[in-house]
């Protein structure tokens, strides 16, 4: 399982990085989205992969941490997802405004 997930993260990173250095703004926004998936998965996987152990505890029972997935990376990623959405939105608007102002969708604001 770890192997599959790490390969998947690698593919996401590669696609993201490739798009990141492309000249068109739309490519960059897709690239950033893919990269953010990869990073979220990476952070999440730092808590190790466990199936059927969601971090939802039973009240009043002695708690064994080993029986649950690590909640900390999950909390980190949860906010990261929302913030990621915000930055995507911001970038999209900047992309649109730049396209409106400069008449091109090249990242430098002018055709090479």
């Amino acid at each position, binding site marked *: 399982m770890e192997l*599959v*997930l790490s390969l998947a993260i690698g593919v996401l990173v590669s696609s993201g990085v490739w798009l990141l250095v*492309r000249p068109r703004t739309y490519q960059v*926004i897709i690239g950033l989205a893919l990269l953010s998936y990869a990073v979220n998965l990476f952070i999440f996987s730092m808590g190790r992969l466990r199936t059927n152990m969601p971090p*939802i505890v039973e009240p009043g029972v002695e708690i064994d941490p080993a029986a649950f*997935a690590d909640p900390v990376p999950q909390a980190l990623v949860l906010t990261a997802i*929302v913030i990621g959405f915000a930055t995507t939105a911001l970038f999209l608007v900047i992309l649109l405004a730049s396209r409106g102002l400069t008449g091109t969708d090249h990242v430098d604001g002018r055709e090479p």
Partner: protein
Amino acid sequence: MAAMLPPSARNTEAWLSGAVSVLAFAIAVYLYPSVADGAVVRREIEWVPELGLNATLRMDGFAWLFSMLITGIGFLVVLYARYYMSPKDPVPRFFSFLLAFMGAMQGMVICGNLILLAIFWELTSIFSFLLIGYWHHNAAARDGARMALTITGVGGLCLLVGLIIIGHIVGSYDLDAVLASGDLIRSHDLYAPALLLILMGALTKSAQFPFHFWLPNAMAAPTPVSAYLHSATMVKAGVFLLARLWPVLSGTDEWFFIVGTAGISTLVLGAYFAIFQQDLKGLLAYSTISHLGLITTLLSLGSPLGAVAAIFHMVNHATFKASLFMAAGIIDHEAGTRDMRKLSGLFSFMPFTATLAMVASAAMAGVPLLNGFLSKEMFFAETIEQHRASLLDTLTPYLATLAGAFAVTYSVRFIHTVFFGPKPMDLPRQPHEPPHWMRRPVELLVLACLVIGVVPGITIGPYLHTAVVSVLGERTPYYSLAVWHGFNTPLLMSMIALVGGLVLYFFLKNYLARSEEDPPGLRGLRGQRIFERILVTVSWRWARSIESFLGTRRLQPQLRILVVLAFAAGFWPLFNGGFDLDLPSLERIEPVFVLIWLVGMVCAVGAAYQAKYHRLAALILMGGAGLVTCITFLWFSAPDLALTQLLVEVVTTVLILLGLRWLPKRQEKVDIAITPAARLRRNRDFFIAIACGAGVSAVAYKMMTLPVPVSIGDFFLRHAYSEGGGTNVVNVILVDFRGFDTMGEITVLGVVALTVFALLRRFRPAPDSVEVPEQQRLQNEYDDATAEREIGETLRDYLMVPSVLMQWMFPVIITLAAYLFLRGHDLPGGGFAAGVAMAIGFLLQYLAGGTRWVEDRLRILPVRWIGFGLLLAAFTGMGSWLFGFPFLTSYFQYLEIPVIGKVPAATALLFDLGVFSLVVGATVLMLIAIAHQSIRSHRVRAVEAAKAEEDA
């Protein structure tokens, strides 16, 4: 002691600043008994004790003497400035700068820590900049201020580095520790660089050759400022530092040659330049430079007697130069000009001022029975002594005598041209005596000159002794302050200087009456011009060439460098630390999961491949990758993440869909031609991307297969219910344990939403996107062509079923959001997920009903949602203060609500409600801001059409 720290309050009244300086003066006087016999008063305030940085205040005899000068002359300057400044000038600013400067200077003098000293040092530079540039409408003042700041600021930086080296050598920044370890410092390898850097600081501050040129340019300041900065304080800071560190640094060849060369050349050149100035203040400025050179020379000699003379001369120079500056200010104020070619015969108009100025300049020239004479005698006596067998040392007495003669010449010139001779012609104003209180400070200072000059032993003697002991300690030599030492070589030198100076003046008199500014022969060599040229070279030409060489305005190379650097930063430690990958085991692999991720990877690569020409396809593929991510979260026990990811995925896709309409068309055929260079670039990028992906894969795999260390997650798991009152640990972490982080995050979200909104308010679409999209045009044409149809009807018919469905779904979605929100503390859900779900509810209405339809029926005020959410979260957090707990401590209890049953009611729930409200507001704001553009562009089109009609 507190009164001596920089006063930060704006003092609007002159008497207030006067009172502050008098108070400081009184405190200094009061402290005298405690420092009188070489003792040290210390007060330590912990600052950064780990680094040995304490705000130590330390007052010894030398600091005391300087405090007296700073506060005493400071008070006199305040009194003087009260009459000098015109009512039109913003006087409160002046006095607050002056007080701030006084505070900084005072702090520098009494601080007991090297780093603190450097800080106060920089503060004096900054405040002197503000004071010199006080008349900021005047270009000369601005230039002078900038030059002073640049030179002294650079010096200050050097000083800081030098002091840090000293601190490194000694192992402590404490001044007492440093003063006690002179031998250690002098024998250390780093002594030379430290000395050089510290000297850079001290020599620039004290305007020593070749850094002297800022001082004459700083004369554009108001005269009280000049009187204060250039007599008692600013320029004295340099020599103060030299004297302070004298026991530690002096006595070596390096010290003697650097300081000696700078000092003696400043002494002679300054005096020579002073003779040929036409501006009264210019003359005084160069004479100040010259006198500072004298002090520096004395300190360079490395003999204790030299140090005594230097300290003595610092005091003397402060008194007579402050009074002379004030006198020059009075002349300027009452006669309206400072040009010595215009001024003459003022004695009959202002006899008092003239007499005072005469006495003071006699002190400057070193006439017997005045204080300047005493220290000059000591100086001459010191120069004759042989210190180091070298050409410089042999030459010193002759040069000193020459400079003495020059000093006499310019002093005589000052008096003779201004006060004697024919009645002045065409002066801007009719000169007269100044107000009584404006003259009073000058009178006091001149009186001090006289008294010290006549009976030095009983006036300044004990205080000077205190200061000298505190600097020299056991090396204090025997010295005599008597006026009459009998006929000896120094007296002879004085006589030669006096007579020589007078003779020189009578030779030069006629030439000077007509000549231009600056001495003959050296007119071309203006420090100012060299300085400006250097500045232009460094800050313009070099900067430009570096920018064009290293910088790029193109984004792609910058990003590429960032990516490569990130890769290298990750690779390097792994490469060095050894990184071995275990062979992957294939046992635990589930085929379904593999299949899912095969789809995911294809989606990712496909998105990357299609993003240029097929945006919609790329978006869908990206969504596919997102969904697979979402399934992964669910698979590995993270239901919260899966839920949020799913909802966010929806919103993101819709958002980008809305944006797609404004992007330019791009056809594959048009730019198909790929040059070899572009191909090379792509190959390189491809390689970088593969390398990054492989690297991250390897690291991720390694991390995942390592055994789990003990993490803070265990703590959260154990205490989530007992202390946070919730069973969903992720949610408890977000709203309770790490509530403050969440607070920050929702603030970011709100800020982003507002930014998006603000950016779109001024949105101008590109011309080719303004037109109605092809699809809508076709629909509208059909409606137009058919008689019984109205425009837009086809579209409405199309979406009839979905829009009714969505209307029915709206309450359902709201209920779902409420459900997600309420269960959040115990089961997957929570403010984030519920907020996004709610936003989707609004969004669906927009999609199905059309922007106009929704806005006619529903008033969503997203900005209020944002504000409400943020305030609620903040107030919930602050609520815990009422009960004496830290910010965001939560309280919880289960409430029995009829029908629904047991509901957890933690204050964290309120906080989560804030999160929810903000997320709804932010998401909706962003989405409708973009959606709204299609309506606005209709309006733009209408306006343009109307304009076109008008033109026709």
